């Protein structure tokens, strides 16, 4: 019974609004654009942060990445002829780091090399990574064909190679290449698999496989190619000795990422005179991204709040005018026996219906705009259920809040005076 009454009241509210189509439309406009812009802005914000988060997740949020870098002092002396730079992480560092922390679940050591490679007639310089099977757990990517490096490969010191998409493209390798042999440097490797690879950058940390063309077992890389690389430069030859270019560590859970990273830094520092390493924590980036998102949401919330309040004031303004204009009608209804509360609810329902419909149209607009932005500006946008329902509830609420004053004014109309009102 009560529900039927509410439905009837809402229907008669809609009926009333339809009697003044243009005015109702204009009244709604503020809410339409308010809600529309909120939904659109939320979608853009969500899109940007989702993009950032995705990049960070590619790094692995439980990972710590320790990289070798040329120290500043080394850079300065490197220009001298026949000088050999020795820097970076060592095999011992790896053993020490892994042995020192019980929080470490998996670790992988990485050697980076550049080698002239050849598949059939095709020859290219490839970026070669010597690593262990753990790499593929820490930097998980889909296998396109074949398999990745296994523990047996390390044990057997098997000359196997796993190409990334980049490497496969460079050598024009396809699935049928699996089982065939490629030449890396002067040595021959059997291709056992091809894996997907990710490009891009997250914050100031490079995605580990961004610059990888081919993976080989690290023991093999060490044995075949050694630790010294020679590069021809304009001024002559540049020689470097780097044992490990990267150590990637995965810890058990997020809570210990930062403390472990600090510990690792301490351990390595003890054995390095120069600052020739860098510890990066993707999780810190994640935190940073989340903080940015929070700030963004606050700013957005304020703008949204202002635009919705402006919309609400617009509604209030017109409803007040409506009340004055409909004074006589109110008087008639009161004389017939409508109670004050019934007049209040009549006007409240009208404003709520207005603002809710305005909110719905606004959501339509707010969904349309981001898809246009994505289409034309190529910016990622994400519409979440929250970014739709929140503005809808707020707009309905605004209808009630800003409709209340005009409704109370309407209810206070004295029927005797109102009936004489022209």
């Amino acid at each position, binding site marked *: *019974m009560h529900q*039927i*009454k509410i439905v*009837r009241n809402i229907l*008669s509210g809609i009926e*009333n609004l339809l*009697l003044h189509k243009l005015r109702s439309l204009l009244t709604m406009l503020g809410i339409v654009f308010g809600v529309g812009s909120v939904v659109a802005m939320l979608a853009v914000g969500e899109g940007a942060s989702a993009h950032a988060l995705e990049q960070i997740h590619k790094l692995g949020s439980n990972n710590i990445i320790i990289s070798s870098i040329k120290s500043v002092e080394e850079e300065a002396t490197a220009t001298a002829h026949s000088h050999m730079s020795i820097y970076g992480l060592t095999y011992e560092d790896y053993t020490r780091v892994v042995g020192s922390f019980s929080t470490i679940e998996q670790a992988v050591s990485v050697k980076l090399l550049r080698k002239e490679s050849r598949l059939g007639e095709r020859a290219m310089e490839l970026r070669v990574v010597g690593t262990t099977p753990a790499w593929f757990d820490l930097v998980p990517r889909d296998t396109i064909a074949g398999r990745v490096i296994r523990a047996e490969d390390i044990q057997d010191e098997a000359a196997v190679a796993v190409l990334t998409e980049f490497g496969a493209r460079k050598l024009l390798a396809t699935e049928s290449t699996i089982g065939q042999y490629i030449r890396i440097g002067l040595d021959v490797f059997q291709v056992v698999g091809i894996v997907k690879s990710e490009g891009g950058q997250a914050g100031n940390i490079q995605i580990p496989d961004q610059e990888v063309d081919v993976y080989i077992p690290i023991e093999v890389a060490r044995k075949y190619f050694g630790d010294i690389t020679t590069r021809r430069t304009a001024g002559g030859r540049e020689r470097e000795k780097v044992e490990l270019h990267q150590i990637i560590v995965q810890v058990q859970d997020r809570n210990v990422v930062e403390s472990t990273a600090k510990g690792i830094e301490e351990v390595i520092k003890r054995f390095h005179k120069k600052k020739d390493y860098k510890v990066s924590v993707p999780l810190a980036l994640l935190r940073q991204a989340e903080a940015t998102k929070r700030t963004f949401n606050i700013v957005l919330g304020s703008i949204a709040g202002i635009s919705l309040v402006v919309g609400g004031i617009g509604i209030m303004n017109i409803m007040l005018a409506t009340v004055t204009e409909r004074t*006589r*009608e109110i*008087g*008639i*209804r*009161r*004389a*017939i*026996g*409508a*109670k*004050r*509360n*019934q007049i209040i609810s009549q006007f409240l329902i009208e404003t709520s219906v207005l603002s809710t419909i305005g909110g719905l149209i606004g959501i339509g607009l707010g969904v349309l705009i981001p898809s246009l932005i994505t289409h034309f500006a190529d910016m990622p946008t994400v519409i979440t259920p929250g970014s739709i329902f929140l503005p809808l509830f707020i707009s309905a609420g605004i209808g009630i809040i800003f409709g209340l004053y005009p409704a109370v004014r309407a209810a206070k109309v004295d*029927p*005797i005076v109102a*009936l004489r009102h022209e």
Partner: protein
Amino acid sequence: MHSQSYSNSDADIIRLENAEKIYQMGKQQVRALAGVTISFKRGGFWAIMGPSGSGKSTMMNVLGCLDHLTTGHYILEGQDVSTMDDDSLSELRLRHLGFIFQSFNLISQLTVQRNIELPLYYLGWDARKSAERAQELAHKVGLEGRLDHHPAELSGGQMQRVAIARALANDPQILFADEPTGNLDTATGEQILQVLVELNEQGKTIIMVTHESHVAAHSKHRLHMLDGLIERIDGDN
């Protein structure tokens, strides 16, 4: 004095006792009702007459439960309504009273049917029953086929018929008519008065405010007011 039993014979539908209504107009007090005591019998047809400022409109508003007395008592159907709050008075109007006004007071945006249904809406009737009732009333006042029209499409007489149908929707005990023919030509006015006379014959108590004696002539009793007091009552009693 207040607790005296309002020896209320069933015949009295309305009783005013020392009814006073005082308006504050600036610094001046206006006694629109200056202590009126009177009973109205059930089934009567009263015309309240008097020059402007005599208090007849105030009388009407008080009797119609639209206005409070300053002092005194108003007993409607044996119930003292002078101390009732706004909601209770609204409820009384909704269930027991009907109003007809000089300027019809129809809601212009609503169709004839919706106007007639208005009291039923507040009484909580469902749509089908309300529509049936509206049809029946339209027939009764001679407005068949006009239910979908808007008031602006009707003549004055037709508009007043809609108003009468609306006033009858809740089957009221008392019908108040405030200058019901004031905006109509004589012939149309005559027809409307005829409708009122018929309703009275069917048992409705009617209280009508008018200042025209040929209009008042249709009533059974005429109550002449002057300066907030009843000057005299005439008619067959």
